[in-house]
């Protein structure tokens, strides 16, 4: 019996390694297909600004710029909106309202990216063309759509971070006469900031990796986007557009594009995991020290009024 139990434990342990194994084999295969190519054509070619696979030019610089621009735009829309929603859900709304609103976030999270892309094509692009000018398909369109798409990630993780702030923090602040907003702004949000930072980082990860919606709305022209109204191409779009017919060096170049994406994403996830693990500790020493300092100052301020 004991032997059987040991076997079971070992087997489960092996199964548990599956996700790490998958991660390692993704790394292995993508590097195997793309890395030799980069060394062969050289970093100068691969990070140049010219992407002409037929002429042997495989520069992805403008796509890196495109991804960065769209992501930055998405954050500009998505982060304020997402954090605001999390604060409303976590700190302001009553129990009843919260249970009505939370499913809405889940619906938003479930909408497939192709549907967002389609709405981009049929609503956002004509709107931009009509009121702002340009071809419509642009970095701005991508940023708007992605800003909405990263909302569920930002809301869910910020909400977790707000939940992790002990109730006593709020009680103490309110008991000293602070308003609800003062409590949120000066006590709860600062205490939750590493979790909110993790939410933003994971939002960046989602925006960088999003493919289908971006392919549909950004125009995909390989160029330096000088204004938000110009079309651009992202790294993911490059893969989705050309992988189907690429072969030889062209295919290897696309895998190399994949390597760049993969490294960026794994880096972001690692940072987010580190930031979040810090959050797991209930109250850091610094935070406790600060709350002690606040208590002392408040007492000092109150004392003269009390003692005659």
């Amino acid at each position, binding site marked *: 019996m004991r032997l059987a139990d040991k076997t079971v434990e070992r087997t489960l342990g092996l199964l548990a390694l599956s996700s790490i194994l998958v991660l390692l084999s993704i790394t292995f295969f*993508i590097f195997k297909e793309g890395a030799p190519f980069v060394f062969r054509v050289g970093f100068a070619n691969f990070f140049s600004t010219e992407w002409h696979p037929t002429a042997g030019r495989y520069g992805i610089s403008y796509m890196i710029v495109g991804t960065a621009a769209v992501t930055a735009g998405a954050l500009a829309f998505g982060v304020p909106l997402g954090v605001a929603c999390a604060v409303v859900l976590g700190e302001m709304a009553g129990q009843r309202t919260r249970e009505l609103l939370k499913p809405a976030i889940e619906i938003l999270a479930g909408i497939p990216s192709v549907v967002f892309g*389609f709405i981009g094509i049929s609503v956002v692009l004509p709107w931009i063309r009509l009121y702002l000018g340009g071809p419509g398909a642009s970095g701005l369109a991508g940023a708007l759509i992605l800003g909405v798409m990263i909302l569920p990630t930002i809301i869910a993780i910020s909400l977790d971070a707000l939940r992790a702030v002990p109730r006593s923090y709020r009680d103490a602040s309110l008991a000293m006469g602070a308003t609800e907003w003062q409590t949120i702004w000066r006590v709860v949000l600062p205490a939750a900031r590493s979790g909110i930072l993790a939410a933003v980082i994971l939002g960046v990860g989602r925006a960088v990796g999003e493919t289908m919606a971006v392919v549909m709305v950004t125009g995909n022209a390989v160029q330096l986007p000088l204004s938000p109204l110009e079309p651009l191409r992202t790294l993911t779009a490059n893969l989705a557009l050309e992988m189907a017919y690429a072969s030889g060096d062209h295919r290897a170049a696309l895998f190399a594009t994949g390597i760049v994406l993969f490294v960026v994403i794994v880096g972001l996830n690692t940072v987010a*995991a580190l930031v979040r693990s810090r959050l797991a500790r209930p109250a850091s020493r610094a935070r406790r020290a600060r709350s002690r300092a606040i208590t002392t100052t408040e007492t000092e301020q109150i004392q003269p009024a009390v003692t005659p």
Partner: protein
Amino acid sequence: MSGRLLTPVRAQLVARTILWSMMMLALTVLALVLWFVLRRGLQHVDWAFLSQPPTDSGRSGGIFPILIGTLEVTLLGVATSAPLGIGTAIYLAEYTKGGRLTRAIRFGSECLAGVPSIIIGLFGFVLFVTTLGLGWSILAGALTLALMTLPLVIRTSEEALRAVPAAYREVSLSLGASKWQTIVRVVLPAALPGIFTGLILGLGRAIGETAALIFTAGSSLPHQVPRSLLDGTRTLSIHFYQLAREGISADHAYATAAVLVLAITVINLGSSFAMHRFMRRYG
């Protein structure tokens, strides 16, 4: 904060107004998205659309073979990730007590959850489609989807297992059952509804997936129901992508989108409601 123009009470009012209106803005966007897709889509969805094969590259006819192909790819995908995910969850929830290995496993799963679907698709293409020679097929697509849903299955199953009160295990162990007997006969049955809900949630995620499937399940239009797991198929979301991007038929694109969004919304809301109830049972 100088002067009395912005008193704490006024600041509170201003902040509340701004935050609530941002919440409303987000809800409005969601409502518009749903309204936009369902209003124009549902009027073209009827029994004929659901039960007939597409004709004229999707301009007319229905989506029946695509529905079946989608079901096969996603169900097979989730069925593949289930043993891996549940096994991992059992190991994490019942056997390990923290430590470096657990942290590594958890990091691996979180990291995998963050890997963009296009990268997973690329990997699936190299490993399943070319190296293992499965070609563009239901099997290759399903295996790729299994990797995508694995982190979700691990997380939900672990939550379900952890929701089972420790007292259940203690009673079973005190009666002389071995650890494995306890898990199989006591813990797993108690956690089963939660685990199952997690799998359904994974299914919802898989149905909406596009980027991971373009290079693995193929995108050629099937005219009849796929016969073997090595046949290629087009899933609903890929079909929709082709219709919308090539501008083949707006009506059919809307109708397909409506079916897709409705299916996913029902699955997501249903399973999250079920999960909520499950968690409360032991809470």
